Structures are given as C-alpha cells and as structure tokens.
C-alpha cells in the first residue's frame, strides 16, 4: 500500500498521486510547540514583567515548558518516512527551506530554557547536595548527592550576592527567551504559510495566528496542570497528615483562585487577538475571492463546517470566552474553560493541517482524512491515534521525572 492510502478517501477528481501526506503528527507538531512556547511566555510574565502574583505558577510553567520541549520534535520524528536520517537536517541544512533551521532554532531555545532553569534551581541544587552529603544514608542517597553535585556544575557559592546574580541572569534569559519562543512557533506557522501550492495555507498572517493561539494553548495547559497538581498535592498531603497525625494546618492548600483568575485574564487577551486575526483572514479570502475561493468555500462552509464553526469557534473559542470572562471565576469553571480552549486550539491546528489537504490541488475534488484508530501496521500506529496519544502523554511523564529533581512548589522540608 502506498503511503497515505490507508487513511485517505477521495471524492470527485483528485490527482492520482495525491493523498493526505501530512496527517495527525503534523497536527500534533504545532500543537506541542505551541504549548512549549505558551508555557514559557507565561513564566516570563513573572520573571521579566514582575507580575508578582504569578510567582508560583511561573516556576511551574517553566519546568513544564522544559518537559514539553522534547515532545515538540517527537511528532516530526514519528512522521518522517526515514526517521533515522533526521540528523541530515543538521548536517546539510538547505536554508531556502523553512524546515531547515528547525534544529537550530529548537536547540537555541532548549538551551535558553535549560540555563534559565539552572539559574532558578542552582541554590536548591547546592542545598540539596550539601544536605545529602551530611545526612545521606545508603546507596540511593549517595547517588543523589552525586547527581545534585553534578547539577551545580561546580558553582557552590550561595551567598547573598551570588543568588542575586542568579536572579538577574534568570531575568535576562527569560527576556531573551520570549522572542525565541515566539520565533520557534511563528516559524512553525511559516512552514505552512509559505507553501504557495496550498491555497488554504498560504497567508502571511499564518505565523502571527500561530503565535497567538500558541500562547493561548500554553497558558490554558499551565492553568489546567497547575490546578491538577495542586489538587493532587492536597489529596496526598491530607493522606500523609492522617498517617503522621500532623495538625491539619500543615497540609498544602489547593490551587489559588486568585492566581488562576489572573492567569485566565492573560489567556483571554491572547484569545481575542487570535480570533480577530483568524476572522480577518477568513473575511479577506471571501472578499478577494481569488481562483481558489470556490473550493475553499465548499471546504470551510460545507465539508468542515462542524469542525471549524462548531468545534473550533463555538465550543473552543466562544464558550470558554464566556466561561472565563464572567466575574467570580471559580476553579471548576476555569478548568472547564481551559479544557475547551485546548480543544479549540487543537481543532484549529487540525483544520489548518488536515483542512489544507481536504481538497485536491486540481480544485476539482476532495480528500477526507480517516484517523487510524486501531493500528494495523507500524505506519497506522505512528500516524494514528496511538502515536498521537504517545506524543500527548509524554510531557506528563517527563514532567514527573523532572519535578523529582526540581521541586515546583516551595517545600516544607528544611535542609
């Protein structure tokens, strides 16, 4: 079977070689990079602009952004027909191609996030290493002590001045990171926006639309995960308290509604921006009505109507907009709102990537994408539901691992 044949359904006239070649993983790719960029921008709101109330969620989203980072190129690897040759992009980058610089941009961004994290946690690493060296017992503690010593990179000075310098470095890195994060994602938009052969993709607005929706999705995921982690901690804390007979005041509280409400406000700003741009694009296309408009119209208003107007704009944008902007935001409402926002952004990616291939470049026929659910082969796993879930679940696993070393909440233990 030819690549793409398993999930493509053709209608009317489609060129014989045309199939849906960019499938679910290419939907996941901008979705994941969007989350990375968005989470980072959120953490920078505290570090750079000094929005004090965001302190707790800032740390959280920085670590989360780092956990998401390796998951951005993952869908690309799963999508490549020759995944083992991925390093060719770094070996012979062909810079007229929008994808060629991906490795470079991505690594730059990764290094910025990693060094920012290091400055944030250096004090913690030193304290931990010293504590373990003195009080550590057994092999595990010994190994941990070595790990933390290594993580300090030999910078043991935790004097007032040194820590102050750390803070400054964090600020600089967070500031430098914002444009790079935006670039990383705007760049993903450019990959689509610059394909002149595709009538739906080709628009200079694409990178900007991508950045705005990226920030929206990143903030939404951070709120959601922040609430989830807080509730989990509360639950575990209660259990521990019951076991150790601690006084109830010692257990950690749940998510702070004030923080959630403030963060949601930033989310709304970017949401409005994103919708405005998307609508502008749509109106412009309808008004100028160039050659491709006939087929685009039938895709947008007929074939993909439910996906675009019900799922993306309705459920994914309008409903959460109302939910989040009504006064006295409760945690529960925020969770519902952010979940819907995530759905909306995911559907937007879907409608761009899959929607862009929903019509033949002959403009005389349509293609429909059938997401492979039950994997019958490696191909239908990689580019099917299984592969997508793998990519979506990975950040949580990494987040768990990383947060073992870099605690995201101020701990009650003293070293």
């Amino acid at each position: 079977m030819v690549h793409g044949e398993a999930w493509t359904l053709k209608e009317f006239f489609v060129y014989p070689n045309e199939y849906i070649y960019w499938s679910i993983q290419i939907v996941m790719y901008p979705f994941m990079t969007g989350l990375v960029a968005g989470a980072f921008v959120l953490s920078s709101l505290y570090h750079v602009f000094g929005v004090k109330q965001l302190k707790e969620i800032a740390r959280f989203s920085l670590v989360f952004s780092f956990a998401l980072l390796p998951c951005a190129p993952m869908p690309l690897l799963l999508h490549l027909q020759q995944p083992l040759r991925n390093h060719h992009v770094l070996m012979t980058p062909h810079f007229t191609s929008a994808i060629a610089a991906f490795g470079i941009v991505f690594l730059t961004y990764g290094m910025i996030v990693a060094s920012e994290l290091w400055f944030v946690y250096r004090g913690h690493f030193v304290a931990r290493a010293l504590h373990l060296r003195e009080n550590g017992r057994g092999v595990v503690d010994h190994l941990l002590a070595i790990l933390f010593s290594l993580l300090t990179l030999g910078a043991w000075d935790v004097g007032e001045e040194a820590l102050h310098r750390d803070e400054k470095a964090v600020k600089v890195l967070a500031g430098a990171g914002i444009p790079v994060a935006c670039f990383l994602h705007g760049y993903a938009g450019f990959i689509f926006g610059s394909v002149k052969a595709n009538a739906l993709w080709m628009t200079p607005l694409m990178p900007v639309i991508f950045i705005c929706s990226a920030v929206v999705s990143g903030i939404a995921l951070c709120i959601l995960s922040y609430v989830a982690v807080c509730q989990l901690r509360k639950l575990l804390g209660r259990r521990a308290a019951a076991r150790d007979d601690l006084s109830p005041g010692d257990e950690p509280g749940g998510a702070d509604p004030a923080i959630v409400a403030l963060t949601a406000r930033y989310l709304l700003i970017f949401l409005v921006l994103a919708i405005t741009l998307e609508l502008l694009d749509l109106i412009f296309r309808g008004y100028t009505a160039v050659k491709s408009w006939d087929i685009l119209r039938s895709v947008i208003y007929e074939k993909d109507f439910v996906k675009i107007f019900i799922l993306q704009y309705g459920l994914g944008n309008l409903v959460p907009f109302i939910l989040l902007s009504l006064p006295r935001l409760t945690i529960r409402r925020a969770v519902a709102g952010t979940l819907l926002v995530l759905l909306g952004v995911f559907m937007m990616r879907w409608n761009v990537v899959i929607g862009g291939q929903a019509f033949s470049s002959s403009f005389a026929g349509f293609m429909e994408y059938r997401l492979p659910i039950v994997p019958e082969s490696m191909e239908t796993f990689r580019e099917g539901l299984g592969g997508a879930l793998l990519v979506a679940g990975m950040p949580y696993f990494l987040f768990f691992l990383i947060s073992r070393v870099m605690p995201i909440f101020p701990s009650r233990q003293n070293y």
Partner: protein
Amino acid sequence: MITRRTFCKQALLVAGGTVLPLAALELFDPRRLLAEKEEGAKVRWVFLVDTHKCVGCGFCVKACKIENEIPYDAHVSRTWVERYVVTKDGRTLIDSPGAARDGFTSSKIDQNSAGMVEVKDEEIAKAFFVPKLCNQCDNPPCVQVCPVGATYQTADGVVLVDRKWCIGCGYCVMGCPYGVRFFHPVYNVAEKCTFCYHRLHKGMKTACVDACPFGARQVGNLLDPDDPVTKVITSERVSVLKEEYGTKPQVFYLGLSMEVK
C-alpha cells in the same frame, strides 16, 4: 590587564581567522568552477505534449511504471493521463482511473467515492485527454522547500531526488502545485518523474515518448535551435500548466483547454 588596543587587535585577528576558511568555500564552489569551464549550460531538457494526438491508451503510463520500477499495482505513478468530459450544460467531469495505466476502458467517469458517472454521448460538448508528468520547473518550489537538499536541479534543468539522502518529510510533496510527487512504496522516499534521466544521458528518449504510438509526447533540448521540439515551442502557440504559481514549468502543451486543471 587587557587594554582596549590589544583587545581590538586580537578581535580583528580572530574575526579574520574565522572568515578566511569561509572565503575558501566561496573560492572553490565546484558548481561555479564547472559552469566557468563549460561556459554556460548547453542543454535544457523540455517536454512537448500534443493533446490533439493523445487517445488515452495509457501505453506511456505502463511503459513508465516498468522502466522506472514503480510497483505495477501501486496506486501512484510518475506520469498519468487525465480524461476531460465537458457537457453541453457546462459541467466538467475529470478522471484518471488507476493513473490510466490500462487506458480508459469504460465510458463511465470515475468520481472516486462519488461513484461512476455516466454521461450520454449526446450530452457531451467536448472530450479530450491530457497526459501529465513532472514539469521540471525552472523555478522549482520542491527544490526550494527540501530541508536537506535531497531534491536538486541538475545543470540541464531536470529535478532529481537523492534516494540516499531524502528524510521523507513530504515537504516537497506539499510544495508541488501539480501533485506529481509521492512516496515510493519500496524505498519510502520522495519520488517523481525524472524525464528518464538515465535514458536521456545515453542518447535515448524517455520511456513514455518511445511507448506513445501517436507521437503525442516528445522530449527535446530547448537550447538547441535545430531540435524539432524547440522549433514547435518557439514558433507555435503553446501553453503551460498553472503558470500563476511562478514555477516556470517546462512541459509545453499544444491544444490545452481552459478546463484543464
């Protein structure tokens, strides 16, 4: 203590030292050396399709599949033939069943999931066949978008894919406005018509040109004024496909109609 003077000196030294090897790269650009030696290209392969002569037998598609080892039953092909049926009430129906490997054996028009459509003879205003293949564009977007340079243009104008270097990202497939690219079912890399580059270099014609019993397909060198193909292209009214994309396609057509996509 480093003074400003020594700092400037050393900085210049370092900068100079880094630029020098880069300059060497520019000096020894092999392509430029070759171009200078050959004093400009002498060959530009182009294609000429006379749609008036095509009867839709599909011999070209068959020959191409065999010559270029594209699995015979796979639903992809380097070249294909389209059938256009325009009805008196202005509808245009197009199909290319199985890339027309076996020609058009039924008068019903294959509309994929919309089924086979029967058009009565008396309703037909005009009907014709159009062979398609890679346009070996002069400004090929597929070459532009390949992130690793696996798709490249030769000096004589043909666009080729390096099967050992392609990572299979599919960007070129998306970038080609003519839908000629696909993934090779065996090698799993980008695949397309090469004008039978291996044959052209031996002084032969492409497999499809040789297989066409009616002379609807011809290949030639545009830079040779005595080439019969060049003569037709320069003296007759020819057109190309999808000019609006700025790809400068090099497959020229005689007798194209406005319905052709």
